[in-house]
């Protein structure tokens, strides 16, 4: 590119007039929404009272069919899901979890009076490291493993399942990023004792807020439903409820989003390919490849910046993008193991080297319903120009970064 740099960081007009957020923001068409709302208003069945309502029951059935899993328990959000899952497994004490995850994964442990023990990740895939998990299990005081499938990929399920069996500890998963992903022919949602999905608007299947727990274990499923708030007639011992019902309108939206799943996944795939084709050609930018899955939902565009070849640090690139009105949240910032009270837990930061590296170098780009091919072109242009003009950008940004 030989033209005069037109980046906003140099004072040019931002490429985007309003902020382009990360994603996914898929949502039903108005007509379907209105029809669903009118149906609910005429039935006057708004949400579970003693038992789940008809649309929640239908949504769960469709999820079970889609994932080929015995039980899907629809919930208000995935954080409640992780809290309920942890409690249902009866976990107390130390649970292995990656620090490189959205903080809710670890917060869920805290509410159940469990202590996180942070494992590291694989530097290439950013999934939890089998070697690191094994080393922690060898300590002998581990009560469970909370695995995390990141970025539309899967952690190495076979290896981690083998380790969990070998050490006799329960294994369950935060699968917030992985709805619709498949390991060989088996859907994520069928591994371990339980898996927890998020239906937050950031994920491919959205109910605004929402989530579900999937399991093939009948006894666990019954307890999950009781904890969610479903009626249980005179039990000997009452479960500690954790009110987390999904409403009928959320379920109606979820059903429509399931209908749209293939179309939205294809849209993600096209967008992901467009980004990867252009950005991988830029020195120092690597878009993470999907790992551990035969089919992914392509719901994230996550990449890493190598400062020595790209010319800018990750945070400098994000400053360039921010000036252009492109969303630039640093993923999982700050890394969970550095946030109180987790930072107070004795840990060996040297054993979280890959996590710390990922926290310095990883970025995410917008993908989904609000993103067009033209947006992707523009974003890739910005990143390309940022590389070419990196030296000048550093001189402009240095005073800003210093403050």
């Amino acid at each position, binding site marked *: 590119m030989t033209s005069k740099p037109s980046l906003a960081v140099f004072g040019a007009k931002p490429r985007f007039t309003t902020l382009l957020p990360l994603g996914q923001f898929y949502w039903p068409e108005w007509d379907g929404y209105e029809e669903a709302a009118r149906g609910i*208003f005429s039935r006057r069945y708004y949400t579970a009272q003693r038992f789940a309502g008809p649309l929640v029951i239908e949504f769960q059935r469709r999820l079970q069919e889609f994932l080929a899993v015995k039980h899907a328990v629809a919930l208000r*959000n995935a954080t409640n899901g992780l809290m309920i899952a942890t409690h249902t497994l009866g976990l107390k004490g130390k649970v292995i979890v990656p620090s490189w995850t959205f903080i*809710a994964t670890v*917060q869920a442990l805290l509410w159940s009076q469990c202590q996180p023990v942070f494992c590291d990740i694989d530097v290439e895939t950013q999934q939890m490291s089998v070697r690191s998990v094994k080393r922690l299990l060898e300590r002998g005081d581990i009560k469970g493993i909370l695995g995390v499938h990141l970025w539309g990929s899967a952690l190495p399920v076979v290896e981690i399942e083998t380790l969990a069996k070998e050490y006799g500890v329960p294994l369950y998963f935060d699968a917030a990023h992985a709805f619709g992903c498949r390991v060989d022919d088996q859907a994520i949602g069928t591994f371990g004792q339980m898996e927890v999905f998020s239906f937050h608007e950031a994920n491919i299947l959205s109910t605004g*807020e*929402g989530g579900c727990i999937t399991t093939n274990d009948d006894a666990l499923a019954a307890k999950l439903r009781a904890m969610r708030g479903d009626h249980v007639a005179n039990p000997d*011992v009452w479960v500690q409820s954790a009110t987390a019902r999904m409403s009928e309108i959320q379920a109606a939206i979820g059903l429509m989003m399931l209908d749209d799943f293939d179309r939205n996944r294809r849209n993600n795939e096209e967008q992901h390919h467009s980004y990867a084709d252009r950005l991988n050609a830029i020195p120092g930018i690597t878009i993470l490849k999907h790992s551990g899955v035969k089919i992914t939902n392509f719901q994230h565009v996550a990449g890493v910046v190598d400062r020595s070849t790209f010319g800018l640090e990750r945070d400098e690139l994000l400053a360039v993008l921010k000036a252009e009105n492109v969303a630039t949240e640093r993923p999982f910032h700050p890394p969970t193991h550095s946030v109180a009270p987790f930072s107070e837990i004795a840990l060996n930061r040297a054993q979280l080297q890959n996590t710390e590296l990922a926290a310095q170098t990883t970025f995410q780009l917008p993908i989904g319903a609000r993103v067009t091919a033209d947006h992707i072109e523009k974003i890739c242009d910005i990143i390309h120009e940022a590389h070419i003009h990196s030296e000048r950008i550093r001189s402009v940004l240095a005073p800003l970064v210093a403050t």
Partner: protein
Amino acid sequence: MSGQPQVSLGGEKPLFAKAKPTGNLYRPDIEAFLGYSRRFYENRRYSDGDLCRMLDLRLAEFHAVERAVSVNSGFWGHVLAMSALALPGRQEIIAPAFGYRRTDDMIAWAGYIPHFCDVDPDTLGVSVDTVRAASNDRTALILAPHPMVNCCDAQGIEDFGRAHGIPVVFDSVEAAYRTYNNRRIGGFGDAEVFSTHSTKLLNSFEGGYITTNNRQLADRLDGMKRFGLVGDTVKDGRALNAKLNEVHAAMALASLDEVDEQIASHRRKYDLYVAGLRANDGLKIVEHKPSERADYRLIVVRIDNSWPLSRENTLRLLEAENVLARPYYAPLTQKVVEYPRICPELPVTKAIFPRLMVLPSGAHVSEDDVAKIVEILATIRRHGSDLKSLRKLG
């Protein structure tokens, strides 16, 4: 009226074809709900967006408080409020055993031990005396629920908390519209927590909110309900997701728009119940105080010794007619749970709980329905000894 029953009980078919519940299940104008929904269709954010902001402002205005913080349920609103306010280093939270059936679960999630207290026989709520009896040097917080009708001594309990340096959270789920000493509910104690579950005054499908005059506390709760996030940085590890979504916020706004009309409708039905039960000397309606602003939403009756049946048999008889009257709370001390609780003797609770029930009201109950229910109760009163032998009572 002659001695002949006007309605016959225990027939082949229930008197009501459709069940008559106690839950509100209020249906706001659907066009208003769709109108609010169009806003998030325009700006394409579906959780914790502009409608939630608008709702927070509207609720603060409704309660005449500095701040309202919308959350996804009363339950998690309580857990957040207790977690934010409970005194560090202390272990117990005082709450009545005669209250919402998940009260002790909420306290356990917050990480504290429920210490049950008794209630006042007149207000049916906690009093300064019952709270004092349960307080000690391990008390971290007082959780004071308002009863289904009228208020507990909100001012007295607020003063008690302040005098002893113990934070007070009111469970005001049933009291959203009310005043105490002519002051709006919402501004008492350190915080008040509300539910907007569809069975409550305001229907948002699911949801809730916290009110407070303490801006710092509101900021803290705003962060805690968003994973402790402030901007794009996590500042607080002890947090969770209790954000309200925009669809539920749209519903809350539509319900809030019509709240005064809703109260007028409750008032008409309440007056019918009061007039209709006046002649029935076995049942005594718990009346709203005329000196305060009231919602007239829930119909609570006391059963006295002259009533011919036990409450349980009365409820069974009513249920057979599709009148889904309910006990007024069951004491939490009756259930067995998996976490520690402190359960002292609670003589008032023990004496009054079998004598209270809640009669159907809300959107599924018309003024005609109330007349019929009153008639059924009159029939039970007149023919109680015969009804005792009905097969349905087992």
